[in-house]
């Protein structure tokens, strides 16, 4: 890890440990916006890790990956990745960056563009934290190339994923927007998949640490759960999934500014972390027993997010079908070289 990444890592742990309590997670689920947490994150400069034009793309990507991983360990209930990406897209295209939380989603509908100016109509479903975001970056179906930023967010219907994170539907009728060229709707989908993959990787680390700690302290039949081979073997499997998820998520995040590579690495990541999330939630709940399925215990803050995140921005099956078709097109003889290909 570079010095800067290490600094971000340490500062983020301190910040999130201070702000993200289970009490806050409960409050946010009932509709509270964590104003203090957001202000602290903004003040720490965390929103511009990817927009920072003074550092190299590889550094930007690595810093962002570290930050998202730590934030996900703490389950920070804010649109951190969404805002970071949206700000970076705007800064890179020299579009004025609005204050506050930003988000992005997929527009179903149509757009009329005149140069930089656009008008859009249609809807965007399950947009993360849309109720808190002043502006929304949308993939634009009709233009093919380019995405849009809607300066107004349209009519909003509140919704939530099963972890209680806001996932709102937006309706647009002749809404004004700005066109951002150089990034397509497909690119935006892959970026979303990479973000969720890294969040899943971070949450899996939390689940592993929490479940190991529980197994070491919970006594049954006169000894700690950790002493039972059946438990040890389950946790070893959980560790393997955590390791695999971490490395593919990191690989996808490294490509976050390189759409031509990201379409593949994000697909690989989202498939593998999806598998890992499925296995890990099963194991963690099994080891925790009945207390782990109570509202009082904190395990569910991670497991419910994992169940949502594995399905968001394309479930593992969606990306697996893409990867599988691509492998089939490559064919048997070139399959291996497509795996080792680094370009």
């Amino acid at each position, binding site marked *: 890890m570079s010095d800067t990444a290490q600094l971000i890592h*340490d500062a983020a*742990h301190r910040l999130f*440990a201070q702000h993200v309590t289970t009490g806050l997670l409960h409050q946010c689920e009932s509709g509270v916006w964590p104003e203090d947490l957001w202000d602290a994150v903004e003040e720490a400069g965390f929103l511009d890790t990817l927009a920072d034009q003074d550092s190299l793309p590889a550094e930007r990507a690595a810093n962002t990956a570290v930050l998202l991983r730590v934030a996900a*360990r*703490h389950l920070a209930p804010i649109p951190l990745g969404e805002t970071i990406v949206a700000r970076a897209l705007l800064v890179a295209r020299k579009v004025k960056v609005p204050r506050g939380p930003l988000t992005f989603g997929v527009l179903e509908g149509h757009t009329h563009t005149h140069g930089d100016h656009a008008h859009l109509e249609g809807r965007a479903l399950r947009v993360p934290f849309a109720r808190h975001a002043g502006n929304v970056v949308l993939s634009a179906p009709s233009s093919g190339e380019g995405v849009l930023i809607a300066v107004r967010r349209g009519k909003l219907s509140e919704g939530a994923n099963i972890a209680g994170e806001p996932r709102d539907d937006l309706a647009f009728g002749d809404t004004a927007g700005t066109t951002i060229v150089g990034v397509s709707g497909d690119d935006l989908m892959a970026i979303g998949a990479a973000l969720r993959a890294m969040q899943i990787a971070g949450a899996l*680390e*939390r689940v*592993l*640490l929490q479940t*190991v*700690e529980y*197994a070491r302290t919970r006594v049954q039949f006169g000894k700690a759960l*950790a*002493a039972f*081979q059946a*438990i*040890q*073997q389950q*946790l*070893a*499997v959980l*560790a*393997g*999934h*955590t*390791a*695999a*998820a*971490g*490395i*593919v998520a*990191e*690989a996808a995040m*490294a490509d976050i500014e390189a759409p031509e590579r990201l379409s593949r690495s994000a*697909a*690989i990541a989202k*498939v*593998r972390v999806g*598998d890992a999330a499925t296995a890990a939630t099963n194991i963690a709940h099994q080891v925790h027993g009945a207390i782990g399925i109570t509202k009082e215990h904190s395990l569910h803050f991670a497991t419910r997010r994992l169940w949502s995140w594995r399905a968001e921005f394309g479930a593992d099956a969606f*990306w*697996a*079908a*893409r*990867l*599988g*078709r*691509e*492998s*089939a*097109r*490559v*064919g*048997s*003889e070139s*399959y*291996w*070289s497509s*795996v*080792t290909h*680094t370009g």
Partner: protein
Amino acid sequence: MNLAQPLPFRFQLASLPPEAEKLRSEVRAFLAGEVQAFAPELRAQSWSGFNPEFSRKLGARGLIGLTWPKQYGGHERTALERFVVTEELLAGGAPVAAHWVADRQSGPLLLKFGTEEQRRRVLPGIARGETYFAIGMSEPDSGSDLASVRTRARKTGDGWRVSGTKLWSSWAHKAQYMIALFRTGEGADQRQLGLTQFLVDMSLPGIKVRPIADLTGHAHFNEVIFDDALLPHDALIGAEGQGWAQVTAELAYERSGPERFLSSMMLLKQLVAAAGPDPSERVAIALGRLTARLHALRKLSLSVATQLQAGANPALEAALVKDVGAVFEQDIPDIAHDLFGQEPSAQALDAGLRVQAQLTQVAPSFSLRGGTREILRGIIARGLGLR
């Protein structure tokens, strides 16, 4: 819960240097000429295919003993270049069994613990692809419980007198040497401390090798009986009583490489062929999942190779790769069955089904050899602080 604590294992994204990618092209070109002619089911034997002629050719190309010092016939390349050569040989289905153990663990062990005389005697032949090694660890009553070995080496004026039986020694009937773990000390405190490693010349009198057919009828592993065999004094490797520590180091070489997830690669390629250019949704999803798992394993394994190159001892990471890798390798024959449901058979006209027949039958060994799944998960659990 302290969420800032590091995980007990570390995997970092690593990339291969240009010289390693250059070597990859060379190995690919070499294999295209040497291996393409072999039947797919032969190539599916992967690192169980014993072919001295191929091993000698590989040695002549400078592709064995890749990281060893030149004075012992090595080529002083990096662990990352070795990673590339290894994965290309396996993915290409090259018959590498003859020199595999010697190159992977016996040579490195001798470099670390052997005497100068042992190194000069043995290593150049390994690097030429002419000298082969068997592993003498397990015994009839010691499978996973390696510290319980009973084969005894007794020091006498003439040398070491050895009596007992080693089991599951692959290619002991063809190898010139074995590195064996014998008991040299007795007593309650000697379970691990009473063990010593020896360099055994398999041509010595008093050593009998009895091949054991596996469930396919092939005999690659053996029972090796030592009947008061006399080993010279200089057969000792490292220090008397240090066998346990040395064998643990040897196992780290054995557990971390790409052979721990590429054993079913020939069948995966056959699955891609069977899928055709326009697969059904169900087949595409299955292929995509396997592809994602393969990428993840390769990145994990490359991270281990990078740590080895840096001089670290990533034993926990190696155990994780082997455990996750074995599940992947073993799933492939079952997924082939699930997707296509054709009867695998050695007589099938379709090459894919012949490969599937081969791998379906050998897949159970993937989570036995080199440390069983249960042993590895125990090691991982210890790393997690559970035991």
